[in-house]
């Protein structure tokens, strides 16, 4: 029981530490990086342009998630 509680506490600490208050931000980062990996493997764009595109997607994803969160809070 004590071990289980320790494991749960450990997992909860790292979740709060890395994922934080809004899991959607982490999800958007992982999604963009997955898209980047697929695009890179498919040779969809030259490296430099792909890097720029992914950077823009990361910023757009963060903005969208944050504004969605603000709008949703207001509805509560």
């Amino acid at each position: 029981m004590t071990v289980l509680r320790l494991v749960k506490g450990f997992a909860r600490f790292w979740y709060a530490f890395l994922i934080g208050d809004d899991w959607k931000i982490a999800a958007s980062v992982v999604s963009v990086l997955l898209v980047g990996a697929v695009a890179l493997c498919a040779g969809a764009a030259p490296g430099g342009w792909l890097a720029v595109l992914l950077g823009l997607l990361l910023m757009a994803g963060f903005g969208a998630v944050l504004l969605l969160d603000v709008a949703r809070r207001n509805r509560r």
Partner: protein
Amino acid sequence: MGATYGLVVAVFLASVVEAVEALTIVMAMGMTRGWRSAWAGTAAAAVALAAFTAAAGYALATWLPKTALQLTVGALLLVFGLQWLRKAVLRGAGLKPRHDEEAAFAEQTAAARGAGPATRLGLDWFAFTVSLKGVFLEGVEIVFIVITFGTSAHDVPVAAGTAAAAAVCVAVAGFFAHRPLSRVPENTLKYGVGLLLASFGTYWAVAGLGVFTADGTSLAWFGRDWAIPVLIAAWFVVTRLLIRIAPALARRPDRTGPNGIEEAP
């Protein structure tokens, strides 16, 4: 070279912010329950953090190839940095109260005065455990930044030394001020650190995607390291835009007072 400058600036600023928060806890315990136990807790946390940094830094640098390391630490830095930026944007937009070191100190001293006496190993156990926990938790954030920045820039010793220097500066300032360092512009520093973490995270995570190519080389940004200041500027513009848009989207009158604390409607 750019990465090394960024490493020193980001680690120093992040360490100052976290050290100021840790100092507030240690001071509250020291002033109300006794300095010996508060310092013992701080020392125990420092030893644990040093061991954690050495073990995790060695493991990451040894086991992962360069591009996989860039992808891993870049993604972690990005996710971690975007949390800081999210809070900075919400604070800047008046949708979240600003961090107030005086209020944190008052809360900690009240808790310390209210706790009953308990002595173990010759130490005031409350002061020891609260100091240990406070310094360790604030320190883990510094360690995380030291390891991720240090391994990506191949300079863990510089990162660790910078963090230690920042902690010493804060401790000395606290010793002379003999009160929490509430005049340190923590909210602004946190915003700046968030920008650096997100920018370096973006740079390294995208570069690390090269691990999926046949030759496994890093994905190159235009201008290489010069892309980093451009990314910092871009993240700055994005967050300034969000700070302007978010209050309008919240569709409510701004009830935030001049010091950022939300007032009663």
